[in-house]
């Protein structure tokens, strides 16, 4: 029997829990940013995403992503592990496995969930729930699982080409950023955007969400080492880049408007965590610092783009995750160092070949995420209609779709009557 390390398994399970926690964190990060009348709908979409992707993952998604490769071409896994059958076996192709496959299943499941959940930010305040569920289910199987296979499975075609993506700069970040752009284009702008006041209704909620994301990201990145002993580097680099990006974003705001904002600062933190995601195990302190600074500054500039383009990609998934993902993936090609792990990048004498692989991964992910998501989105929109009625949008999704209201903060609640248990 294969021998597992209890310590490594403890770390991977703890990390899986941490990554899970990122989704409620993301839900409130986004929930705080929308208007009061839509906050529950945002939370609902995130929790529905957890539920839908969780079930799909154990029943088929995991097997498509990490099952034995179909035909050896590196495009998709088979149904070998569907419903977690044969789960006592080893993960195909992975060297030096010190954790049971079932722990790897849950760890990777959380990645599938988080990535899908990010898309809720692109289509805030206007999506029908039923159509969203169909879309996100299809997206998880059709867009995410294959991409995870290509990059994360050792049998995937990009992995075999030598792409270095420690924890998902392509699979998670560029993927969500471009998919977000595509689905935002499909569903169209919010009524009144960009003319009307759409300010965040609860910034402290968003800041707490960002704090939870940062916390969870230690599991996300350092858990991806799949080993406690090798996790430390990823851990410290994650923190360094996140910190640097927070400062860089704030600095850009200081320069542009004279006043750094809190929402900007924590958005910078997220951008830094995004950018270090693919790189955290491959770079040193210099690399992590530079990647963070670059990501914070570039993403801060990128958020204004949508106003120029007239695209209501509402909560900046593209600007933060897309752009941050690009920075991180390409930075590996420059700052990757064999002293940490992996190959040397351009700045450490490794030449341009690693950078080439990274660029390939980024291009492929961009094309696939945008194209496939647009196709699925258009299909769902055509068949079911992804958008609520104008009246529902004005009244707010919470009342219109869910018959609930997020807050009742009056000193003494007034103005309603109960009907007994809805009978």
């Amino acid at each position: 029997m294969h021998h597992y390390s209890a310590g490594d398994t403890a770390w991977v399970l703890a990390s899986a829990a941490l990554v899970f926690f990122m989704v409620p964190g993301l839900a409130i990060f986004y929930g705080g940013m929308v208007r009061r009348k839509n906050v529950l709908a945002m939370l609902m979409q995130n929790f529905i995403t957890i539920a839908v992707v969780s079930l799909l993952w154990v029943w088929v998604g995991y097997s498509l992503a990490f099952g034995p490769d179909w035909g050896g071409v590196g495009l998709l896994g088979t149904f070998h592990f569907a419903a977690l059958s044969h789960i006592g076996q080893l993960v195909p192709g992975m060297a030096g496995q010190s954790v049971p496959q079932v722990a790897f299943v849950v760890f990777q499941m959380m990645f599938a969930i988080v990535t899908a959940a990010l898309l809720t930010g692109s289509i805030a305040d206007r999506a029908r729930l039923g159509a969203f569920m169909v879309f996100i289910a299809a997206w998880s199987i059709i867009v995410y699982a294959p991409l995870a296979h290509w990059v994360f499975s050792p049998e995937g075609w990009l992995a075999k080409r030598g792409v270095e993506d420690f924890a998902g700069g392509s699979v998670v970040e560029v993927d969500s950023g471009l998919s977000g752009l595509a689905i935002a284009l499909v569903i169209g702008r919010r009524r009144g955007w960009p003319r009307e006041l759409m300010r965040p209704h609860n910034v402290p909620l968003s800041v707490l969400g960002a704090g939870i994301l940062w916390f969870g990201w230690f599991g996300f990145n350092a858990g991806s080492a799949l080993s406690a002993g090798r996790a430390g580097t990823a851990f410290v680099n994650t923190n360094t880049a996140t910190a640097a990006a927070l400062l860089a974003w704030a600095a850009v705001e200081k320069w542009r408007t004279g006043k750094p904002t809190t929402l900007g600062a924590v958005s910078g933190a997220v951008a830094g965590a995004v950018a270090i995601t693919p790189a955290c195990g491959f770079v040193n302190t210099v690399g992590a610092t530079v990647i963070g600074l670059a990501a914070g500054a570039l993403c801060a500039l990128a958020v204004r783009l949508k106003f120029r383009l007239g695209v209501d990609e509402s909560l900046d998934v593209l600007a933060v995750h897309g752009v941050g993902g690009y920075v991180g993936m390409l930075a590996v090609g420059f700052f990757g160092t064999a002293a940490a792990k992996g190959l040397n990048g351009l700045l450490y004498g490794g030449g341009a070949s690693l950078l080439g692989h990274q660029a390939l991964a980024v291009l492929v992910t961009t094309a696939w995420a945008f194209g496939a998501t647009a196709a699925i989105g258009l299909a769902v929109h055509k068949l079911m209609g992804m958008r609520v009625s104008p009246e529902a949008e004005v009244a707010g999704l919470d009342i219109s779709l869910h018959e609930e209201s997020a807050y009742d903060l009056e000193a003494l609640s007034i103005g309603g009557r109960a009907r007994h248990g809805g009978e």
Partner: protein
Amino acid sequence: MRLVTAVIKPFRLQEVQDALHAVGVAGMTVSEVQGFGRQRGHTEVYRGAEYQVDFVPKVRVEVVCEDADADRVVEAIESAARTGKIGDGKIWVVPVEQLVRVRTGQRGSAAL
């Protein structure tokens, strides 16, 4: 002087503000209120407990103006706030005996 009070749909506020500006109104006071009338409220459900919420969020706009301007102010609000759907709201006018600008102590028209 007159006090014109309007209870309107919240999302018409900006139009009303612009319309008032157009007729030369320089100031106003706005507050959030709950309205009850022909426009129905809505139902909310929490774990099987169903509540009928009777009230609809409205915005109250108050403008003090010269007697002679009252009609124009009313009409400006009226046309800016109108959507033609139930619940567009009411406007009422009340006589004002005195108006004071706190900063300067000016009285009457000078206080506007």
